[in-house]
């Protein structure tokens, strides 16, 4: 059992930024991540970021992870525990941790939950055959571990992750035979989609996977055209011979800890699923528990980093740590987050957020 002022759960872009922002104000931070490394999903992102200059535009995700990790490790205010899983938040306001196989409890004064999101999957006959992956998992396999997932790949989902991972597969020398998208349009940024189109990858819009085939592992799939009611049209089936199928059909916030802690939650499809009510300072309805990143709304890493700053600053401020230009920094971060969500790309998130924002001090 040991004490810490602030526990940050999750060392991805939101958690790293939260740690740095809180430490900068003078708070002592314990940052835990269940992976053996910090950086979260940034470490596999070999593409360059858009977003604002402040949030490392034109840098690759992996580089941003390196920069932030270095800063965090260099801070004498931040203690980092990797291979550490937060198991639960209990009534005595403790958090149980599994640290490299041992059980410990901490009593933090503030908790920032920055657990991120997990990939959604699709259910169809034989969807459990080896060779069927989440697109993010394939990205990790290739870009973190240097393993080729297979020889011939099809991608389900033409959102940003779908098209970016398709491009990275092509760069790695894997044949991408098709991108299959159920919606009648491509969801990803045009610039990413154009790149894969130029390389000759067909994008089947208004199509879905009907079935997978294979004995020991994946050998092929049947796809079919969808009608206006999203039902497969008989006679439009196409057979694709592949050994890997990547599924990229969105992310769901990893909210188990928040549910278990008793935070008031709401199902908001625009934000990715069940998400917590939160104040402008990103405090949930359980006093002392803050959120940042995909756990409170599935967005991009740039927004997660700014949200991390807000949560880190606000949580530190609530403990009385306001030593480093606190008010201005908090205001800037809030403005910046609003800025990132401005424009058509942020419309979905904006439409989901209004109902969830609670007034500061409404936490119970």
């Amino acid at each position: 059992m040991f004490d810490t002022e602030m526990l940050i759960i999750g060392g991805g872009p939101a958690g790293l930024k939260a740690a740095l922002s809180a430490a900068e104000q003078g708070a002592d931070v314990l940052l835990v991540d269940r992976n053996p490394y910090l950086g979260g999903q940034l470490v596999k992102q070999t593409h360059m970021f858009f977003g604002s200059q402040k949030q490392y535009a034109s840098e690759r995700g992996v580089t941003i992870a390196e920069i932030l990790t270095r800063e965090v490790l260099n801070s004498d205010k931040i203690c980092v525990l990797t291979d550490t899983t937060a198991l639960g938040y209990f009534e005595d306001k403790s958090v149980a941790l599994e640290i490299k196989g041992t059980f410990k409890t901490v009593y933090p004064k503030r908790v920032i939950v920055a657990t991120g999101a997990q990939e959604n999957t699709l259910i169809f006959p034989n969807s459990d055959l080896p060779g069927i992956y989440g697109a993010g998992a394939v990205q990790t396999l290739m870009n973190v571990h240097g393993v080729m997932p297979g020889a011939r790949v099809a991608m389900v989902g033409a959102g940003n992750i779908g098209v970016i991972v398709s491009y990275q597969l092509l760069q790695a020398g894997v044949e991408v035979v098709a991108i299959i998208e159920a919606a009648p349009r491509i969801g990803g940024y045009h610039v990413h989609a154009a790149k894969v189109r130029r390389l000759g990858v067909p994008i089947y819009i208004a199509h879905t996977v009907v079935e997978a085939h294979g004995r020991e592992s994946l050998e092929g799939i049947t796809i079919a055209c969808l009608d206006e009611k999203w039902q497969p049209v008989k006679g439009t089936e196409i057979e694709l011979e592949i050994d890997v199928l990547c599924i990229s059909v969105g992310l769901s916030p990893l909210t188990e800890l928040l549910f278990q802690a008793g935070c008031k939650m709401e199902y908001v499809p625009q934000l990715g699923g069940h998400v917590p009510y939160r104040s402008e300072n990103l405090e949930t309805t359980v006093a002392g528990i803050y959120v940042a990143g995909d756990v409170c709304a599935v967005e991009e890493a740039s927004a997660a980093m700014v949200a991390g700053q807000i949560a880190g600053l606000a949580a530190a401020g609530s403990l009385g740590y306001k030593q480093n230009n606190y008010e201005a920094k908090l205001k800037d971060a809030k403005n910046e987050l609003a800025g990132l969500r401005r424009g058509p790309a942020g419309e979905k998130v904006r439409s989901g957020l209004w109902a969830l924002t609670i007034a500061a001090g409404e936490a119970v």
Partner: protein
Amino acid sequence: MAMIKKKATVVIIGGGILGASVAYNLARQGLKDIVLVEKSYLTSGATGRCGAGIRQQWGTEMNCILSRESVRIFETLAEELEYPYGIDYRQNGYLLLAYSPKEREQFSKNVALQNSLGIPSRQVTSAEARDIVPHLNIDGLLGGAYCHTDGHANPFHVTFAYARAAERMGVNLYSNTEVLSIEKDKGRVCRVVTSQGSIDCEIVVNTAGGHAAVIGEMVGLDLPVYPERHQIMISEPVDAFQVPMVICMSHHFYIQQTTHGSFIMGQGDPNEPKGFNINPSWQFSVELAKKITSVLPHLKSLNIIRQWAGLYDMCPDAQPILGESPEVKGFFTASGFSGHGFMIAPYTAKLMAQAILGEEPEINIDILNYHRFASGQLILEPAVV
């Protein structure tokens, strides 16, 4: 949701094992217009959270008979209820550990009582205990008791088997239906008001488990049943190596390996306050892990994958309250099972159905009427975890 019926003969409150099995037994006797209401979903309360052990090694005659007869029913229950999935019933035995001379003496009395009632339990030495559970650490162990026909069943399958059989005979089961009040007319129950509408009825059966006193209060009764949190945790699955359930009364824990290989274990906390809180605590897992690994050291390397809590419906003498209220006609209670409701439900439900239908129950259950609290005629069950 479809409209609920406005009229019924019997309204059963609570969709756990007791409610479902009472509904089935009433329907099987030919009673029509039976309704069961459950405020959440079937098995959402204590039944779906229990350890689901089935033992006959009890210290009172009544508990011995209720469990012995229930075992007979469990043995062929899936067939009786024509339930295609089975109820995962196994008779792998229960080993009870004695760590004090007093405990050993109590076991000796209990075994004599159990044997006189036809329950094949026996006292064992600590060496014999280790023959039954070879990875048992017998340091400090003075002996124990063992019954090879004790066992385990899947509480979800058992409840759903009863519920589906009841539905086939015309019983209406309404989940997400909370009882708000119960109305009386000339000292008799006449209506149950729920969140989904009112149901006129002649008889109400209170099988609400930890919430039984809340239901009792609705007709002006002060049932001495109270809720008490009990916690459980479960390990990752491993190859089968522990056959029976192991119970340690002096350390308040029990542990058994399930069919799929996980170890499921729980403990009672003597300092647990009364109340409806079912949040799990980390202290529970730490304490129990220490106790378990001192008695069963081989389990040291097992990972715990989940923990949860549920409510015992406690009665001051650790025995249930069964039967009709003398003050409120038509109001029957089957609650206060004190942690062993699941295992004695099959036979208890049969007796309850007989009582509800105005028949003489096959064994006299008068001593379990709630009069006993007024007259002070309590027979304390000594063998509770």
